């Protein structure tokens, strides 16, 4: 059981190529993708700013908690910092679990927690 955290400068790679965790029967991946409009206005991209040590710590806390409560096998969490152009990935969550049910539930919960408790702010560019 492991949780990996990365804050990465700029857009995330197309695919992290993390091998399936030992025992995984279901991998669920979420990619948050920057859309070309924000509040109805055309944008070039989104700029992400983090309170970095706390953001990393919060991601780790939430990840470990969900790993335990949902009995997951592994979680890989990556979030962009700085400018992410339209159509690029700014956030990726990879969950390996035995079965899909716990993975889907954990994914929904993780993203809710991210959008509530992780000190990262976006602004339109």
């Amino acid at each position, binding site marked *: 059981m492991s949780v990996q955290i990365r804050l990465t400068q700029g857009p995330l790679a197309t695919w992290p190529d993390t091998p399936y965790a030992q025992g995984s029967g279901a991998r669920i991946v979420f990619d948050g993708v920057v859309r070309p409009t924000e509040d109805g206005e055309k944008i070039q991209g989104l700029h992400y700013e983090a309170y970095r040590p706390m953001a990393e710590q919060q991601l780790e806390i939430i990840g470990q908690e969900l790993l335990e409560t949902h009995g997951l096998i592994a979680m890989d969490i990556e979030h962009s910092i700085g400018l992410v152009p339209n159509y690029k990935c700014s956030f990726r969550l990879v969950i390996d679990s035995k079965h899909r049910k716990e993975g889907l539930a954990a994914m929904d919960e993780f993203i809710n927690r*991210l*959008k509530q408790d992780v*000190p990262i702010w976006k602004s339109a560019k």
Partner: protein
Amino acid sequence: MPQYTILLFGPAAAAITMDRVVIQSAELCSADQLKVLMIQQFPALDVYLDAGRLAVNQSFVIGETIISTSDETALITMVSGG
């Protein structure tokens, strides 16, 4: 006289174009008291403090928590990652 430095990020930092504020206090403050002083001394932060929480040494604290001036203190306004 205690003097607090509070880190700012995102919209709050942009609103006053400062990445931290220094707050003067008559005595050691709780998180809630510190937020009141912040509004008094930086009225432009009012709107951000409403939904904002204070973090001390990179952890959220409840309103009653007494904050030491040597703690790393930050205002976490409504986040928007993802």
